[in-house]
């Protein structure tokens, strides 16, 4: 008996039937996960990425534990969702804050080692030093090879590259060997007239080559020979040398040492910082700049004020129109209500980005259909077509118009639902007590309605506060506000302003400042959510008392 329970039974006799699909699923998934994790280990060790390595090991170990240990059973259900929630939601929140603590912007994108590498790749051609004589073969439009002869008579023949191209490793350099390559040297001066079927170029032809002084021939163990005229080349030498001990960059062209300023993230040569710099932690500067630096504060305040105004106006209008329509269609004797309803919710059902793009065409000043439609009216006021998207005031009106159009159906649906949910006997009681129908509405229906839809109105405010698509696709924030260091426009709201700060527009990216403003938006969103919670509580109390 004991012997049989020890189970030396061959695979498949006893065990497999009793193993459920859950077992195999777990087995397969964990196996894949562990395999990938193990695969990543050498990469991370190679990159000295200890933090990610630690997270990976702990995370994988944790997941394995959860799926092995019986007491972790409830957690097993959470792991798939939690995995993505942690990486793509919670981690980015903290990372945003981390970025906001840096001067992370164009000119300060890289890390210090990366910047040092970039500088050390820069080369220059020294005034003194060996001059090579150069002969070119091939065709001015391409397919060139170059013969470089050193002063000591040694010869290298290679395919040139542009000095903009990356530097190849020494062992990747492929020189042409005349011992194996057919060439013609009829005059016997040692300089062939053609190599591998490519004729020697005359000086005139050489001058036709585009960017001839950009051409470089790589020579193993020596470096790059850079063409200077069409006939000579010089060996390029490394321009910057980094000294780890003093943390300074030696500029060999100017012969000066450029100490690293770790507060701003630049090497400073003779008082002037040189680009590129690296990103450094600058503390809360990005946050305080918004308050203290006039070049940022002024546009920020303008954007913020308009943002709040935009959200308030839009929500108020949406609610007013939605409520009006809901009341309008309350009468149960009315016909075709379903048809009206189906038509009225179309703006809400259309994907917003499509509607906004279409509106942009319709609001076009010259050809736009809205201007055609209201022409009889505008003719009364001097026959001007309205510059919907280019004038500061009209652009604001246009943004509000489109946003109201997009959102009123939602308010209509919500208000209709809420109106129907108000108990008829309450109104009846009011009427019995002698209230007029107007009093019944303002004293009974409306307050109850507001209580029940207040959380939705607040949520709608929060949504429109960050209604990026409507602003960005309609006006791109424009027309531009001039005179500020940051890209900003009259209709910009905080989120589109932030987007422009972080996207590669003409004035460079500023991830640090963008992240800081993002945090500001986040705080507003949190406050709105808390207020919304309060209303929801109040709602429960009201209905609880009924």
């Amino acid at each position: 008996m004991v012997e049989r329970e020890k189970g030396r039974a061959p695979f498949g006799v006893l065990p497999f039937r009793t193993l459920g699909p859950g077992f195999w699923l777990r087995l397969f998934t964990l196996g894949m996960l562990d395999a990938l994790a193990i695969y990543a280990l050498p990469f991370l060790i190679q990159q000295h990425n200890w933090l990610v390595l630690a997270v990976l090991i702990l995370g994988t170990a944790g997941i394995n534990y959860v799926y092995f240990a019986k007491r972790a059973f409830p957690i097993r259900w959470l792991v798939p969702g939690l995995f993505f929630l942690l990486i793509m939601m919670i981690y980015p929140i903290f990372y945003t804050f981390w970025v906001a603590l840096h001067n992370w912007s164009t000119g300060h994108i890289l890390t210090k080692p990366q910047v040092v590498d970039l500088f050390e790749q820069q080369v220059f051609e020294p005034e003194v030093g060996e001059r090579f004589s150069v002969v070119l073969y091939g065709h001015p439009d391409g397919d060139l090879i170059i013969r470089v002869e050193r002063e000591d008579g040694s010869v290298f023949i290679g395919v040139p590259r542009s000095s903009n191209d990356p530097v190849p490793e020494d062992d990747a350099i492929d020189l042409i060997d005349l011992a194996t390559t057919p060439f013609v040297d009829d005059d016997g001066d040692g300089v062939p007239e053609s190599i591998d079927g490519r004729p020697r170029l005359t000086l005139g032809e050489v001058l036709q080559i585009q960017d001839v002084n950009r051409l470089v021939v790589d020579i193993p163990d020596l470096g790059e020979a850079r063409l200077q005229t069409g006939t000579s080349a010089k060996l390029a030498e490394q321009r910057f040398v980094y000294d780890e001990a003093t943390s300074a960059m030696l500029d060999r062209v100017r012969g000066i040492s450029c100490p690293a300023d770790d507060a701003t993230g630049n090497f400073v040569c003779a008082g002037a910082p040189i680009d590129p710099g690296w990103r450094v932690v600058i503390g809360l500067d990005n946050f305080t700049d918004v308050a203290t630096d006039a070049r940022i504060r002024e546009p920020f305040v303008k954007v913020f004020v308009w943002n709040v105004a935009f959200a308030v106006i839009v929500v108020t209008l949406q609610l007013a129109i939605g409520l009006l329509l809901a009341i309008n269609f309350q009468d149960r004797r009315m016909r075709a209500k379903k048809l009206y309803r189906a038509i009225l919710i179309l703006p809400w059902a259309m994907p917003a980005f499509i509607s906004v793009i279409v509106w942009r065409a319709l609001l076009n000043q010259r050809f736009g259909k809205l201007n055609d439609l209201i022409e009889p009216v505008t003719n009364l006021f001097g026959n001007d077509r309205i510059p919907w998207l280019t004038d500061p005031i009209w652009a604001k009106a246009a943004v509000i118009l489109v946003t109201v159009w997009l959102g009123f159906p939602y308010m209509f649906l919500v208000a209709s639902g809420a109106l129907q949910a108000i108990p008829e006997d309450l109104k009846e009681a009011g009427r019995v007590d002698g209230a007029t129908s107007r009093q019944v509405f303002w004293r009974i229906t409306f307050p109850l309605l507001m209580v029940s839809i207040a959380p939705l109105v607040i949520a709608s405010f929060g949504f429109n506060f960050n209604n990026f698509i409507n602003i960005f696709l309609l006006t791109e924030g424009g027309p531009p506000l001039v005179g500020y260091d940051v890209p900003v426009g009259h209709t910009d709201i905080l989120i589109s302003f932030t987007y422009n700060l972080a996207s590669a527009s003409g004035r460079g990216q500023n991830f640090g400042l963008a992240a800081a403003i993002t945090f500001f938006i986040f705080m507003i969103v949190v406050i709105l959510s808390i207020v919304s919670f309060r209303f929801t509580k109040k709602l429960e109390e009201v209905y609880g008392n009924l």
Partner: protein
Amino acid sequence: MATSRGDTTRGLTAFGEYLTRGFGAGRRHKGDPRLSFARWLRELAWRHVVGILAAGFALFPIIWIISASFNTVPSLSASRIIPESMTLENYRSLFDDPDLPFGKWLFNSFQIAFLVSALQMLMSAIAAYSFARLRWAGRRVGLLVILLVQMFPQFLAFVAVFLLLNRLEEMIGGGLQVPMALFGAIVGTALLAWGFFAWRKAMDNRERLWPGVVLGTGAALVVLAVVASSYDVTVLPGIGLNKAGLVFVYLGGSIGVNTWLIKGFYDSIPMALDESARVDGASDWQIFTKIILPLARPVLAVIFIISFVFIYNEYILASFVLRDVSQYTYAIGLALFVESDVTIASEFARLAAAAVIGGLPIVVVYVAASEYIVGGLTQGAVKG
């Protein structure tokens, strides 16, 4: 929260019934007297006037794009409500322009939105079971964390997401290299051997779990190693600034909200159902798949639709993450149209056709399910 969640739940349940039974046709109220025309004019006519005005406002751009999309003359200035001559050319030409690959964008949008919504729904449905039916320490804290996290709209973190994916691409963008394949082969074989002996030694199935995992890991490593050595291709899905990266980002986006919503629905399913199944010997997984999940189908359908449309509409993250025009989603692809007012004016018909194609599927679903979506949205984000 409880009351509105109840409302949602009721709404979602009704949606389920609607899905299975269909609309009851609207009926005239029997008791109502027939209105005289004068009375109709006095009491109802103005309501129709308001209704027609509002419908006109709602339809204004929609009529224009539909008519323009069939117009033979493509420019904005030439578009009329009733075009002089009609054509389907605008629709056809959308699909053979290599510079603006609409078909590809539409496919990308549907692919990303479908993948994300389906996976998100599944993961949320599973997680919600633990919150609703299992009792464990930290459950309340977990719910609170979800509630807090869902306040933060994911797109606000676009800077972090962009830098994160950029970094990820630098780290694993190169895929698996040949030396790695060698490493994988050695470690994989070792694991296979170890797992095999551990399996043989194990007493029963419970003890075979970890040798099984070791075996599986080893086998997977060996397979990956073989693939990595034979081809110079990326074996890992290259998560970076591309579609795969975007899907990865979106997956984290609304799991919190969805889990919260679905948990609310699970709470309304009577515990007695589980209990009776448990008495019959059902495991948690069986209770989940055989009882809870089928009952939750309506709420899952609504959540799927909401997520789908949300992803379909998303602009900020997509525009930061996607670099290659052939990988664009429909939203950022269509926005290329409005980069200059010249293109808007001269290519309005094609823009209109693109708008109709991209908008129609969503509109149909939204109009059909509007009541239930409003209920679902009450809990999470709002559109409009």
